[in-house]
Every structure is written in C-alpha cells, then in structure tokens.
C-alpha cells in the first residue's frame, strides 16, 4: 500500500488516530472524544480511493477494536458501512465546499453512532451515556482543520 512516497501519511495517520482513540480523558468529557479513526478513514476514502477502500476501512476498524479492547469486529463493521456510503457519494463530496463537506461528515458520524447503538441493542450490551451522541458534533468541527492539515502535508511532499 505504501509503494509511492506520499502515502507514508496513510499508516501514520491511522496509528495516530488509534492512539488518540485510547488517550485518557477526564471522566466528564469522556463522551466528547471525537471518533478520530472515522475522520482519518473518511479522508483517505475521499482522497485516495485507489488505496483506501472497504478493505482499508475494515482493517483499520479491526485494529481499533483490538486497541480499544472492544468486541472484535464492531468498529470494523462501522467503518465499512461508513466507507461504503462515502464511496457512493464520493463524486459529490469531493466538490462540496469544505463547510458542506464537514456537515456531511457530521451526518456520517451520527449515522455511525446509530449503527453502534444498534449493534449494542442487538447483542444486549449496555448503551453508552447520552453525552456520546455529542461526539459527532466535535468530529464535524474537526473535519475542516484536519482536512487542511492533511492536504498541507501531502502538498508539501508533492512539491519536492
């Protein structure tokens, strides 16, 4: 996957997202932790469709399951669902202005929470605290800076 030079950012970003996902947060803001991995996967699926597809989303989700000690396959499923929706609407998403793109990502993250809640409901696992439904909002706000940051990294690399 890493044959071309400028793709070094892909694994690095996934690892950073995984670490950020388990970084300890104070108890009251636990629920507000943005779903970093989803943002990263969304970026790559939109920007590098030849390298980041459903398989990439699946593997990333599986890794996240391992790192967070969650049910194996839960996040993998959520990531695959998200990547699939992104692929379907990629043509439109790419040409949205950034703000609108952020809105769409917010919707996707919300959908992701619904999927997670559905999985928990089916398996009879405890539902999360209601504050976890605020996380998509934070993720939406983070999309623009994250997108610009990634683009800057890749542009700089390409310029050489």
């Amino acid at each position, binding site marked *: 996957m890493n044959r071309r030079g400028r793709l070094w950012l892909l694994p690095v970003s996934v690892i950073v997202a995984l670490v950020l996902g388990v970084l300890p947060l104070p108890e009251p803001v636990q629920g507000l932790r943005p779903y970093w991995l989803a943002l990263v996967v969304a970026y790559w699926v939109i920007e590098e469709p030849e390298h980041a597809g459903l398989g990439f989303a699946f593997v990333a989700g599986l890794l996240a399951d391992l790192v967070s000690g969650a049910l*194996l*396959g839960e996040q993998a499923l959520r990531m695959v669902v998200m990547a699939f929706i992104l692929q379907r609407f990629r043509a439109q998403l790419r040409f949205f202005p950034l703000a609108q793109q952020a809105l769409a990502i917010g919707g996707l993250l919300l959908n992701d929470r619904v999927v997670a809640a559905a999985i928990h409901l089916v398996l009879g696992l405890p539902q999360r605290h209601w504050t976890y439904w605020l996380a998509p909002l934070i993720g939406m706000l983070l999309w623009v800076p994250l997108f610009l940051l990634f683009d800057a990294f890749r542009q700089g690399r390409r310029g050489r």
Partner: protein
Amino acid sequence: MSSFANTSAPRPGDVVGTLRLLAYLALSVVLIVLDHRGGWLERAREIANVAVQPLWQLAGMPARLGQTMREDAVTRSMLADDNRQLRNDLLVMGARQARLQVEADENARLRGLLDAATRHSLDVQLAPILSVDLDPSRQRLVLDTGSRDGARQGQSVIDSGGLLGQIIAVTPATSTVLLLTDLDHAVPVSISRTGVRLVAYGIGRADRLEVRNIPTSSDVRVGDAVVTSGLGGRFPPGFPVGTIVDLRPDDSHAFLVGDLQPAAQLDRGRDVLLLREDRRTQAGSGEPAGPPSEAVPATPPDATPPDARVPASDAPVAPEPQP
C-alpha cells in the same frame, strides 16, 4: 485493496461495490458473533494484543509524563505535609495491625485445635495502571505489568478498598483486567454478617453491582457488607466486594435483587495489587506448602513495591505461632 477508482462508472461497478460491502459486513458480523458468543477468538486476540501493546504504551505516555511533572513540581512544604500525613497513617495502621496480629495468632491456634484447613499468607505485587481509555461499554483496565513481571491469567486484582477484578489476558508487558462491574463478570460472595451465600454480577456500570436471586426469607439488609466467599476457588475468600445499598423484589416477586456499591475504587487510583496466591495450597491444604519464610512478621519490614508482602486479613499461619 485497490477498490474501484471510478465510482462514477455505471451499474457493474456498483454491483461489485455492493457485493464487497456485503462480504465485509458478513465478515464483521461473523467476528462479532464469534467474539461475543463463543470466545473462540481468545488465542487470536492474545497474539494480536501483543502487537497493539506498543500503542497502549504510547497512549499511556502523556499521563505518565504529566504525573512525573506533577511530582517534580511539588514544593518542599507539600512534601513535608505529605510525609506527616503518611507517617500518621502508618502509625494508625501499625497499631491496628498489631491488634489484628494478636487476633490472627489466636485464630490460628483455634484453627489448630479444630484441625481446620490452614490458610496461608497472601503474597501481593504492586502493579501500576496504564492510563488508557478502553471501550467504555466494557469494564476493562490495562495494567503496566505483564508476564515478564510475573502476572498470570486468572490472578485476582485488589486495591485498598477490596476486590477489583481478575486478569483475563497477559502480554509480555501489559495485562488486561476484567473488572467486577463488567457485564460478563460474576463473583461468588457472602454477606459477612450472616454468611448468606450469593453471587454478585456486573451490570456494565462502573458504580454498581447486582446480587440476584436472594431468597426473601434470608437475612439480608441494606448496609450489609459483602465479601468474597471463595467458592469456586477463583477468588480467595474474605475480600470486600461492596455494600448493599438497595433491595427490591425481582420480576417474579419470589426473590430479591440487591444493588451493591463496589468497595474497590473502580475508576480511580494509579496502582493496584495482584494477588500472588499459591493455588496449590488452597486445593490441597493438607500438604504444608509454602516455605516457612512465607510466614509474615507482624509488621512487614520492607513494604516496598514491587514485592511488598503484606499479611492478608485472614491469618498467616506461622509454624510456631507464639515466639
């Protein structure tokens, strides 16, 4: 891995995409079911855990750094205050310990008279918690102590309050603790006041345990302390599990359900203790296992981590109780 480059391509691409989606979804569902139901993935998980262990270490770094900085930044007067406080605590504990030791000796003698099974001292090991936030819907904890330091699967984990849980997975440098409060966890307990034996289940919330199927005729009251009963042999007897804070009839109205407030501080604290109890001494108690050095003096001279040896609440039986 290279998925379709041209999503704008008409139907055939879409069909392939949908098929791929279905394949991946099926794969995830199979994984979820395997992991949720059978626990058939234990082995694969174990191997994979070793791989993700560096990530945990990395994620735990900021907290560790912050702590180091805080410790470096404390002033002399704060240290002096701390010292005074700790010395006072030690004095009180020492006095209490001395009294307990008398009782323990007496207990040992009585046990000897009754020819009852001897209980051996419990050996503990200090283990720091690695500060990472795992999936909040599961009650787990990662310790910065692995098989290299002697942690084993199945070990009981306690803190100053009481029983915390048990180790379910070990990698060379970390170990995962299943907390009492996890949905999958149950521990045999008894009411310390009356000896009524029950089972405490986790319900997936950090501040609650549940005791089910209490016969309405049994003597259980709100405020009763609940300790491990030692049945089943997984947990040693006599460790506090919690306090009953609520009793209500269950759906059938034939039994009561009790809510327990866990005794251990499940969401705080930086260090926990691993019980290094010799299983064999419990199973075959006739054999006088454990070297004489296991008999613990009244005040452990070197109560230092990571090898602190403290006498547990139930008496260490010295070969010669009265010096």
